[in-house]
């Protein structure tokens, strides 16, 4: 695949998935989670996946569709409140869930994505969310060490991609996607629109293409949002 044309099909993208992989997924409550790549992940049959992302989605939305299939062994997320199945699997011991403060989680992904070795914060000090994270004393103060996160594979949803992988996002569907792109060894982007290089203004590009391995064409969200189902 040449540096300047990373557009491919779902079958090729799917070959990046493997049993036991650590998968980073973009999205916040399913908003900004790539729907086509979630289906592609489901179809792949891969199992024993370690999932890292903001939340567990809803049972029929975002990563939640995959979580419900019991093919993930671990989930590191800030909450699973919107996906009761995730809670059930956790209580049954079928899914190991670690919680992180939401902003700390995305910073940990960023830390991995920018090649740093983690950071210090006092945020979760003295709470259950300290887990057994290392404590570091600097001067007179003790902090929690938060380790960098990287993924074997990352799935990202973009509004537009050029063939190099320069990305722009759509409103609040941006959320964690830029850092998932930076922190994954193999970043796969599902884009609503794929354009030739030169079509995006260099100033508006949010994620430079340097981070992207594969680009696939999206067919858009294939689920109903909670507020849409409520309307009915």
């Amino acid at each position, binding site marked *: 695949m040449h540096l300047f044309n990373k557009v491919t099909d779902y079958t090729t993208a799917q070959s990046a998935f493997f049993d036991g992989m650590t998968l980073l997924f973009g999205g916040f409550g399913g908003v900004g989670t790539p729907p086509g790549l979630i289906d592609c992940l489901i179809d792949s049959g891969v199992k024993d996946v370690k999932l890292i992302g903001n939340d567990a989605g809803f049972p029929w939305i975002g990563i939640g569709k995959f979580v419900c299939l019991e093919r993930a062994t671990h989930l590191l997320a800030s909450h699973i409140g919107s996906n009761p199945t995730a809670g059930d699997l956790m209580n049954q011991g079928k899914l190991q869930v670690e919680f992180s403060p939401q*902003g700390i989680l995305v910073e940990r992904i960023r830390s991995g994505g920018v090649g740093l070795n983690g950071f210090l914060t006092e945020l979760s000090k003295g709470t259950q969310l300290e887990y057994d994270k290392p404590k570091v004393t600097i001067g007179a103060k003790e902090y929690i060490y938060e380790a960098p996160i990287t993924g074997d594979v990352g799935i990202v949803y973009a509004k537009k991609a050029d063939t190099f992988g320069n990305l722009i996002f759509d409103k609040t569907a941006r959320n964690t996607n*830029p850092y998932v792109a930076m922190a994954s060894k193999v970043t796969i982007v599902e884009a609503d629109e794929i354009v030739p290089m030169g079509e995006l203004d260099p100033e508006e590009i949010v994620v430079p293409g340097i981070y992207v391995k594969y680009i696939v064409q999206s067919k858009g969200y294939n689920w109903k949002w909670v507020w849409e189902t409520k309307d009915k």
Partner: protein
Amino acid sequence: MGDERQIIAKRAALEVKDGMIVNLGIGIPSMVPNFLGKDMRVFFQAENGILGMGPTPKENADGNLSNAAGLPVTVLPGASYFDSAIAFGMIRRGCIDLSILGALQVNARGDLANWIVPGKRVPGVGGAMELAYGAKNLIAVMNHCDKDGKPKIVTECSLPVTTYHCVKKIITEMAVFSIIDQQLYLDELMPGYSLADVKNNTEADFSFSTNFKAHD
């Protein structure tokens, strides 16, 4: 109960001042904007990555334009989109003037418990820790007692704590409290409730604010 939640939200709305940057949690806090004056210019921030949210759209809601609860919103002139890391950067950095959060328990020192009921509800912490840590002012809004009638303003939180010493004000359907230097003060009685009601339903010891008032 629905009424009580509206009453709490209406009282909380009085804490929102013109020119503030405000972050609202889910549940009762999300009702606060309904009670703000039309001339009030406030910027609402949400931790998924938006500043300057407007009201819920009446039609043509956009799945990619939502608040942190995933519900559709609109934008006001001057709004901006950004990623979640920057959203939380703002919060930790102290750029949020006021955060209004729901709570399961608050103790007299301002410790907040709002993320887990072990063995029962495991929602996860979401952005609560950052908001509790970073907001210049944190107001906890909640029903005065839980569903079993047990006080939620407690001497010690029995539920896992989200953040210590963070709550500055508590608003319930019965009363408004302030927490200053880890001491609990009764500011107001809410309409329809007596001092006895509040005393009977509050586990934590409290003093009276210097400007304590029974009713508006």
